[in-house]
């Protein structure tokens, strides 16, 4: 293509993504759009094409981003090239979302006509506003009997401040309003800008490891043109590669001779490690390099750590293999071997956040068929000893004795909570309770407020998000960034089952909160650990001092009375089921402890 052709093509490109809360119909709408733009034939059409992995489909969240090129013949008679970029939807992946939004010029905001706006949506709308995207509101599910499109439109105006006079009323399920949405994309979403002959700047918004082709890098071309054979450089890591393939997804990957301004597609370049193609990094050309990278790159470091242990100790090697495989695809996953007295051999793993942790855990269980025990998440503490040495502790059970400790520092984050102003009081109350230091509050408009606090990361990891959601009816959204370490009055709290210390249950807590949290933990464990054949005391201690206690009563009756007319196989099945249930438990001392119990120190409702 010559420059003129490239510019003409540029004017026909529309890049957009879909912002929606789980269940508000994003995948269904994406399917309808794929159908109406003849991206694929009916036969190729797998329901909810964009959510590729089973896990995503089941949890209703999209983990890996996807980008599809579509052609749309608009009412003006012209043919347009659409790139539909899918985004994950959770705060752990805020950064990924922001980078995929940065690859777009517009976004469809899907709001459920019956349920209205939810926090997740709000967070992503703000990210879209940050990226200066044209936002097209769509009120979906208008066919529901409980639909209240006018109320929902008003809500969008009140809460976000968007003009909804042109909002499309749609039902993705029934194909209502789809064409109108596509026409609005043509009319309202700006075509890309950027010089197709300038020095190459391509934004990496995702990458995927393929065992045959190496890393597949998902890119949006902001400036310049990229072709197979060209030498490229990753501007943040400095790594250089030669482009082997470039292409687009339709949604099948299709090779192209070049990708140019506005294009969204992929490249491969024999990249062995996803860590070499980091999300947010800028790809430039070695021969004609850009003078500066695109703004917004951030190296993602794990912030949350936990122990992963196989329930069956024989699965240790399989677990290591699983982690190795997952790491190929996930630059932010870290792990190293560790051992626990209670749980045996396992790994200490680092994650971006809690959801990331849960996803990895679930993928290991599902895709690799390994039953796991996950310990409560921890952050990295900096401990200065009386002898002046400094230790970094990412596992509470490794905390040195109190006598050896001079002081302990913990990571703090700057947490920005965006919320409609009715909930300011509720948010501040939670932040105070979570040991937050108030920084400031800004009114974004008449309704929207951003409240900023410094909060220990460990409190965020604990249950901050759950509490925030429940006390703001889901309207609050938040983002956080690490700001450094601060000294805190922290102590290690141990948990004893049947008078035996269980290292995997140790947690680090603030001294002033230790009694309350100890009580909550022992009560929760009492609830989660099934009755055993003997009475089991559950205790929380700091040093030698017991600070909370509860008792799991002994099981009193478990007997299959009936004869079942000689149906022995049924008896057998019942016993096998019972045994299977225990297999998923870990025997600690003499006590059978279910997997969930190790997370119990995290998941709890303190208000109870």
């Amino acid at each position, binding site marked *: 293509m010559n420059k003129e052709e490239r510019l003409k093509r540029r004017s026909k490109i529309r890049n957009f993504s879909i912002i929606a809360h789980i269940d508000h119909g994003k995948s269904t709408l994406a399917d309808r759009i794929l159908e109406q733009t003849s991206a694929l034939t009916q036969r190729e059409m797998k329901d909810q094409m964009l959510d590729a992995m089973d896990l995503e489909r089941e949890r209703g969240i999209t983990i890996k981003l996807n980008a599809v090129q579509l052609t749309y013949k608009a009412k003006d008679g012209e043919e347009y090239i659409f790139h539909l970029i899918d985004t994950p939807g959770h705060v752990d992946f805020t950064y990924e979302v922001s980078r995929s939004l940065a690859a777009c010029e517009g976004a469809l905001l899907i709001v459920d006509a019956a349920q209205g706006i939810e926090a997740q949506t709000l967070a992503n709308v703000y990210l879209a506003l940050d990226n200066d995207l044209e936002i097209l509101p769509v009120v979906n599910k208008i066919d529901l009997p409980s639909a209240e499109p006018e109320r929902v439109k008003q809500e969008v105006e009140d809460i976000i401040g968007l003009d909804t006079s042109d909002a499309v009323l749609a039902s993705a399920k029934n194909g209502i309003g789809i064409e109108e949405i596509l026409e609005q994309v043509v009319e309202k979403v700006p075509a890309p800008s950027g010089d197709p002959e300038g020095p190459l700047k391509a934004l990496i918004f995702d990458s995927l490891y393929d065992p045959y082709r190496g890393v597949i890098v998902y890119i949006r071309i902001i400036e310049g043109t990229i072709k197979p054979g060209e030498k490229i450089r990753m501007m943040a890591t400095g790594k250089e590669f030669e482009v082997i393939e470039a292409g687009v997804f339709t949604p099948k990957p299709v090779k192209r001779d070049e990708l140019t301004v506005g294009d969204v597609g992929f490249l491969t370049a024999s990249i062995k490690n996803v860590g070499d193609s980091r999300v947010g990094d800028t790809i430039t050309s070695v021969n004609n390099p850009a003078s500066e990278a695109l703004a917004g790159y951030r190296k993602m470091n794990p912030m949350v750590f936990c122990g992963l242990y196989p329930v069956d100790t024989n699965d240790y090697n399989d677990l290591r293999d699983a982690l190795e495989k997952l790491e190929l695809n996930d630059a932010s996953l870290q792990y190293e071997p560790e051992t626990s007295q209670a749980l045996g051999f396992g790994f200490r793993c680092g994650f971006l956040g809690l959801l990331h942790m849960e996803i990895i855990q679930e993928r290991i269980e599902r895709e690799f068929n390994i039953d796991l025990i996950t310990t409560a998440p921890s952050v990295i503490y900096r401990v200065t000893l009386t002898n002046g040495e400094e230790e970094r502790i990412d596992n509470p059970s490794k905390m040195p004795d109190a006598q050896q400790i001079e002081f302990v520092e913990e990571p703090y984050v700057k947490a920005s909570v965006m919320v409609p102003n009715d909930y300011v009081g509720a948010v501040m109350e939670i932040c105070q309770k979570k040991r937050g230091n108030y920084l400031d509050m800004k009114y974004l408009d008449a309704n929207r407020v951003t409240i900023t606090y410094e909060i220990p990361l460990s409190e965020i990891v604990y249950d901050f998000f759950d509490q925030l959601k429940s006390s703001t009816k889901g309207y609050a959204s938040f983002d956080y960034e690490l700001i450094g370490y601060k000294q805190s009055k922290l102590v290690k709290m141990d948990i004893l089952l049947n008078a035996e210390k269980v290292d995997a249950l140790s947690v680090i807590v603030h001294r002033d909160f230790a009694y309350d949290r100890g009580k909550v933990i022992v009560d929760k464990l009492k609830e989660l650990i099934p009755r055993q054949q003997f009475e089991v005391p559950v205790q929380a201690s700091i040093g030698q001092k017991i600070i909370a206690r509860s008792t799991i009563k002994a099981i*009193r009756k*478990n007997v299959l009375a*009936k004869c079942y*007319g000689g149906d022995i*196989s049924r008896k057998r099945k019942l016993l096998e089921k019972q*045994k299977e249930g225990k297999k998923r438990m870990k025997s600690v001392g003499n006590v059978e402890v279910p997997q969930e119990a190790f997370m119990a120190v995290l998941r709890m409702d303190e208000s109870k």
Partner: protein
Amino acid sequence: MALPKAVYVHIPFCEQICHYCDFNKVYLKGQPIEEYVKACEKEMKEAVSQFPYDHIETVYIGGGTPSSLSSQQLEPLLDSINQVFSLQKPREYTFEINPGNISDEKLSLLKSAGVNRLSIGAQAFQEDLLKKIGRAHDEKDIYRTIESARRMGFENISIDLMFGLPGQSVANFIESIEKSLELEIPHFSAYSLKVEEKTVFHQLQRKGKLPLPPEDDEVAMYDVLINMLTEQNYHHYEISNFSKNGYESLHNLTYWNNEEYYGIGAGAHGYVSGQRYANVGPIKKYINNVHSQGRPLLESHVVSTAEKMEEEMFLGLRKLEGVSISQFQNRFNKDPFEIFGNNIKRLKSEGLLKVEDDRISLTKNGLFVANEVFEKFLL
């Protein structure tokens, strides 16, 4: 392995479906009962021709509600059982009846067919409780039925009781035990309610509308049951069964002794020639399959040696006398301690199991948590 000496025949018809029952059963009206009885006969013949017997010692006709069949329907069934299994005064021939729906005519028919034991589903003696669990009879029906059974010459009578029922108190249950004892019958079975899927109770439980007694009450009920019956010289010979000496259920001991038996009828289970099998459940399917295939199997499974050893333990331990070590050795050429040693040791130390002379058995504490013990005998 010895040839089967026991026959179970399943009659899956009921005039009323109890709220707790998840056995294979259907509402009686409009069912092809005559065809069903014919199919049973055909199945018996087929089973016997594939797996012969030498001598049948016990027969058990259970359900469902076998007594819901009319005399005309029962007669050919009883005849064919007699004929196919060449019954000559079997040691025990049990027929299950519900209080209330048994006439003298039916009883005399049973008597002449060789039935010598009646198992009566009394369950409880409180009208409101009986109603709540979906039983059709009342307290008087229980007395009336036992009275006519005795008059017709049946003295080996067993009644079933249930505990842990919704709304049942410990005092209620004691009253049922007292009333049962007054009947001076030689055998009792007492089952604690287990809420099974696909029952009315399960539905209620899901909706939070099944007020089951607390676990401690259930424990108290079982405890009081054992104490009251043993005090009256009933032999507690199996977890849920009590009898005067010599009146232990020989047929049910077949199961607990891990011996073979024919299972005949829709949804019936059997164990012949080292294979455990289950028949198809739906009545029409059962009848069709008997005619097209001879044996209406849903599934069958050759029991491995390991499974046999497991079953020897978890079935045998249901008996208070427990498992015979020497019999285990004879059957498997192995010592039970060689296979299950660690768990036996652990259960012993937990006070749930005892080893005395040739016997491994549950302790009194073990009875209450028998499933926890049995589970340890799955390899």
